[in-house]
């Protein structure tokens, strides 16, 4: 189960998307999110769906890997869908469960919401899947640098994000190990009611917290030993250049927008 969690992971391979400038990709992801919250008709959803499909395909990240990453959030998707299904008021009542009416509007809305969440996760995880943490934080730093003039501590913020990303797999590995160790001592995480299961998490969470603090402490010391100073002016080893690929990406974005606008106008 633990190995299903792919949030924030980098999938190392070569593809057009991997080679893109991180800044383009970040802007891209932001734009993609905005689009997801703006679209409303089925045709628009279809357009974004096709587009996402093409993106995943061209990123050379296996679909299986993507789907595995979706598994842990499926429960959220299902709950949202169910809530929308049963609580939406509408005119066409399809059927009734107890006192709750399931309407056509509710059905449409719940499908839309589920699709929206799935697309949101797929689209944004594509960013971290195709951009290594170092490159990602580098790009983020450049993008956010205007805020520096306003006194926002950007480099600290970026460092925090890159450390967080870097430690997700480590923490998952650690969690896996602790779960195994406690299982071997007879702990049961799979059976019992909710309260029991929550209680069963204690023997996992405490060692996890303890080791996270220990790691954080060690990391801080190691960084200080190498003279890390968050106030200093940092230069980058990497230069980010706007290349042909980025141009393609922007063209793709414009095409997507055009399609969406056409759909909107036609309706």
């Amino acid at each position: 189960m633990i190995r299903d969690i792919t949030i924030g992971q980098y999938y190392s391979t070569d593809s057009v998307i991997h080679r893109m400038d991180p800044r383009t990709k970040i802007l891209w992801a932001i734009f993609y999110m905005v689009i997801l919250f703006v679209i409303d008709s089925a045709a628009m959803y279809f357009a974004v769906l096709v587009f996402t499909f093409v993106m995943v395909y061209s990123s050379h990240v296996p679909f299986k890997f993507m789907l595995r990453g979706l598994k842990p959030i499926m429960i959220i998707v299902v709950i949202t869908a169910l809530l929308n299904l049963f609580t939406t008021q509408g005119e066409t009542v399809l059927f009734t469960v107890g006192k709750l009416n399931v309407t056509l509007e509710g059905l449409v809305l719940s499908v839309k919401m589920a699709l929206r969440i799935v697309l949101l996760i797929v689209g944004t995880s594509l960013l971290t899947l195709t951009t290594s943490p170092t490159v990602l934080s580098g790009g983020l730093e450049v993008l956010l640098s205007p805020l520096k003039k306003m006194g926002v501590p950007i480099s600290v913020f970026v460092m925090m994000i890159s450390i967080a990303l870097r430690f997700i797999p480590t923490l998952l590995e650690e969690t896996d190990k602790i779960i195994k160790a406690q299982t071997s001592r007879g702990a049961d995480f799979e059976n019992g009611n909710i309260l029991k299961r929550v209680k069963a998490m204690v023997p996992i969470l405490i060692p996890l917290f303890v080791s996270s603090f220990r790691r954080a402490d060690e990391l801080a010391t190691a960084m200080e030993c190498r003279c890390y100073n968050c106030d200093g002016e940092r230069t980058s080893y990497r230069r980010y250049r706007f290349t042909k690929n980025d141009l393609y990406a922007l063209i793709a974005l414009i095409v997507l927008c055009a399609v969406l606008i056409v759909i909107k106008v036609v309706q």
Partner: protein
Amino acid sequence: MSNIIEVKNLSYSYSADNLAKDTALVNVSFGFEQGEFIGIAGHTGSGKSTVAQILAGLLTPSEGRIFIDGEEIEDYKEACRALRRRVGIVFQYPEHQLFEETVYKDIAFGPKNKGLSEEEIDRCVRKSALLAGVGEELFEASPFELSGGQKRRVAIAGVLATEPKVLILDEPAAGLDPKSKHRLLKELHKIQKEENTTIILISHSMEDLSEHAQRIIVLNHGVKFKDASPKEIFSSQKALKECGLEIPEIAQVVSLLNSGGMNIGSDIFTLKEAYDTITQKLGVGK
């Protein structure tokens, strides 16, 4: 005597859908009896930890057959459950699994999960604490304020308290000073003798294995390379080297002495044996 646990043609791959990818174990077969002391050796990444986790019922094998008390259990899920009940595992750096407020409570976690009565739990805790060398004066201390070595003992006591028939230890001596290491290995012997527990010790150190294990299983790139007594294993120095392992240093000294013309026999692998033989040969000491 018959094997309490036996695996046949065991294979394991870390990639769920492709057996040929991320393969950690290939066609490994072995078994062991109650009360044996077995060593598992192999280079880094040879599959030692993987095999240990399968034996402890924590990883489901990709392929292979599992026999418990001579009977095959075909359903892997059931086999894992049965293995978990019989096998205790001490992971590398087991101190990272401590979580309770007091040492006593932490050691009691295992027996409590088994649903034992208060008195039974108390008996288990005291017995395993004694075996693992945790003094009763530590019972009320927080496990987080102990030294590294003490923490490790508490963690080992926590596993012992589940009274496993088979105890697997994955590099238990990593990061311990020589004295603590010695004590730990001695305690393992005590557990083996007094409780008739099967001990499976995973280690890089051929010195430790040669001194304690009755049988050593050598893994090489996920394949079982050899399963024999220490004497037999160390007699083929060259083959062992190809697996990335060395025979114990003292055995290398003996072999050098032999090739230098001082004939003292070739199957000497522990310091004590070497000392005895050499002093005898030289006619000093007694």
